[in-house]
Structure formats: C-alpha cells, structure tokens
C-alpha cells in the first residue's frame, strides 16, 4: 500500500521502550514501560477487550490508593477519589510497588488466590494506567508466585477509555 511505503522506518518523536530490568521497578513509577514482560503475554487494547468479552479471565487492577492516615484530626474531610475501572475487575490496591511490606504482600497473595480460586493456570490480566510500572511489577510478581497464565495490559484504564469501552466504579478489595 502506498501509505506504508512512505512511512518512515521508525516513529518520528517516540523514544524506544526501555529494556526490562532484572528486578522490580522501585521508583518513578509513572514513566514509559518496557514492551515486554518475560513470562507474560502483553495485551494491546483490542486483545484485552476480546478476552474481556469472551469472559473467563480475571482482570486485576493494581492502581495505588494511599490509605487514609489514622491520626487525622476529627472532622477532617477526606475523599478517596472515585476510580472507574474495567467492569468485573478486582482492585488490589498498592500491590504494584517495587518492594512490598509484609502486609501488602499477604494482601496480594490472598487477593490472587481468591480471584483464581487457587488455580495457578487461571488467566489473569493485570493492569493499571498507561505508562505505569506498577502493573508491570504486579504481573511480574504474580509470575513469581507461580501463576502461569499472566497477561500484562500496559495501556490499562487509559487505553480502555479511549477505545470507548465501558468503565465501572470500583472499590479496592478490603
């Protein structure tokens, strides 16, 4: 096709995706992510949508939400911002950090076990927002826990919304 013959060999202004690090990403989470995650399938929006429509896979949102501090003065108005996610997803908040506290680790393991009903072959689709390392970290960690059917959906709720797919309000799993 004439169009593609005229396309330059590489995008004009885009940087290359960074290579996969050996370990979890520890900081600067909102940054361009790698193109791959060893051991996981990487899904574009269309593929994620097809899987969602077919049913059977478990979508896991790992967007961070800082918990309300315990010692705020009485009467402090607090607002957790509402989060709209992929309908049917389970939100395991804060499991995407590079290093997890023992509590958060336990929360992640328990959340995955519940969603998968203990089946390591259960298809998991892990996401947060576009250009966020947290979903990459979480998917990598799920693989480390022994889950065998892990997909990473890097575009996350951003890509989902732009594709005109529906979002639904979601609260974190307690």
């Amino acid at each position, binding site marked *: 096709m*004439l*169009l593609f013959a*005229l*396309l*330059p060999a590489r*995008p*004009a*202004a*885009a*940087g290359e*995706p960074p290579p996969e690090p050996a370990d979890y990403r520890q900081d600067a989470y*909102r940054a*361009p992510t790698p193109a791959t995650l060893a051991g996981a399938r990487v899904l574009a929006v269309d593929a994620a949508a097809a899987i969602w429509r077919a049913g059977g896979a478990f979508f896991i949102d790992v967007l961070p939400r*800082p*918990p*309300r*501090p*315990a*010692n*705020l*003065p009485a009467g*402090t*108005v*607090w*607002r*957790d*911002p509402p989060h709209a996610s992929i309908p049917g997803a389970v939100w395991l908040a804060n499991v995407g*950090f590079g*290093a*997890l*506290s023992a*509590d*958060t680790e336990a929360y992640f393991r328990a959340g995955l076990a519940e969603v998968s009903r203990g089946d390591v072959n259960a298809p998991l689709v892990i996401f947060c927002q*576009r*250009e966020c390392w947290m979903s990459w970290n979480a998917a990598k960690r799920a693989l480390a826990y022994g889950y065998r059917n892990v997909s990473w959906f890097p575009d996350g709720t*951003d890509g989902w919304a*732009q594709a005109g797919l529906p979002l639904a309000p979601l609260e974190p799993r307690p």
Partner: protein
Amino acid sequence: MTRTPPLRTPALRTTPRRATRPKAPVRRAPLSMPGAGLALAATALGLAVALAALVGVGEGRAQAGRAPVPASGASGETAGGGQATQREITEREATEREATEREATWAAIRPDLFPGKAIAEAADGLVTLSAPGRAEDAAIVPITIALGLPADDPRSFRSVTLVVDENPAPMAGRFTFGPGQRDFTLSLRVRVNSYSFVRAVAETSDGALHMTKAFVKAAGGCSAPATKDTAESITHLGDMRFRSFAGSGRAEAQVQIRHPNFSGLQMDEATRGYTPAWFVREVEVRQGDRLLFAMEGGISVSEDPTFRFSYRASAEPVAVRAEDTENKVFSKTFPGGGS
C-alpha cells in the same frame, strides 16, 4: 531552607485552564473507509508524516504544529490546514470528560466543606488567587490569596478557606482574621496531588461566601517523599522565624515554622509502609493583642509551613503560636520591626 521557592507567584490564574495531559489520546484514522482512498492517495505524503506523528504521539508529548490528519466521517473532508485535527477532537473530548469529572469532585466535597451554604463567584478583585499553571514541585506549590473590599463596602473579611479539590484532604487551610480586616494578602505553599482546581472561598462579615479558582497541573504532591531537609526539620522541630519586609518598603512579613508536616501518604522506603501523618494543625499570629490571622490546616500544607502576609510594622511585638497533631505546642514572640 535553601530550596524554598519565592512565595511571590508568577502568573495569575483566576480562570480555569483546560487540562491538556501530556499523553495525548490518539484515535487511528479509519483507512478502510470507502471513498477515503482517493483523498488519501492524493495527500499520501502529508498523511505519511501525520501517521508517523500518530505513532510517535502515543508515547511522547502532544506537540502543536504537526500535519493535520484528514477528519474522519461521512462529510468527506480532505486534509488541509484549518480543520480540527483528529487529535484535537479526541483531546477536546478527553478534556471535557476530565472537566466534567472535576466539576463532579467539587460537587462531591462542597457539601462537606461548606454545608448548606450558597457560594457566589467572587466579584472582580474581591478574592484573587495566584497559582502556577503548572507546578515545578507538586509538594511545594506557591499560592497567593489576595482579599480586598472596595472603600464603599462596609463589610470586612471573617475568613478565607483554601481548597485543593483533588487532594484526599481537600481543605488545605482555613484562615480566620481579627475584626475589621478589609485588605489582606496571604501566601503559602501547598501540596497538589493531581491536576486540580484550587479554590479560595472568602467569607465576609455578612456571612456571604465568595469564591475564585485556579487550575494547577501537578501530581503526587501529597505522597512525594519527604525532602532531604526533613531530618533537619525534625531536629529543628518548631523553630520559628519572623521577618518584616518594612525595611524594603513592603508592608509584608513572613513566618516560618520548621516541621516535617508528614501527610501520612508518603511512603517510607525502609518500612515500605506509610510515614504516619504528623503536621501543624493550628497557627496563630498576633500583633500585640490583635489577631493577624489564625490557621486551621491539614496535610495539604507543605513541609516547614511558611506564610507571607500583609503586615504593617509597629513597635508591638508579634507572637506566633503553633500546635501539631501530636499536641506539641510551639510559641515565640518577635520584635515588631517597626516603631
């Protein structure tokens, strides 16, 4: 502190700016549309450049001045300058969606912050809010609130409340004044957690509320790690400085209180948990017996709370008192700096 930015803020932003996120949403041009083939072939070069731009934009910042993509749709518009580009349309839709979400935020928090009250848009000059359109450091965003009543207005100001809509604790601070305050400017630094409206709501002596707002692009201010100076802030916990600028011809003064002002949302690398909230909750500044201002503040106020405010130097001493969430009280009296 060496890294204190000046409290004088540059651009005045009293009208909301459209949020333009750096990651521009991109919708692919529908190449398979019947009838589009001829138009596309005719403008192949322009299109190839535009497609390259589309592929590039997905990962980088949206840039003005790229070649326009033929608008999709049955109208069959051809490529050319002057048409709304595909990217602009989707950006506008995203911006409108975000604007709707932001108005929803204000609608959600307003009844908690100002229960049962009517809030009017402030008349020109009554309340002015200066904030950077895009913050350099989301943990230290300089804000200036200016309050002024026309000479023929008999009212005075009782208080002004600073709100950062998208912050988890949206009420940054409520500042109350002594009687008869008609003309007051206050600057401080706040944390802004995500792109947000910042609002100043002033209450006049008749109980009326007057609001103005500005839009600040910043992210992560509340959870930004404590600075390297934080250990210093703790060592010098509660140390205060007062400075009058009368000598340089300005009717202003500045008060600083050393305090980490932990928001409770900052992650502690060592424990991988959150550093507990610990912040200055109340401040009172008096000139002689007269209250200049009192603050009831929250986690949105930056580390080492610093306030610059209207001040007419006199011989009367200035007394500053602060209390934090651990019920520690700090107080100091300074010479007034005038005669």
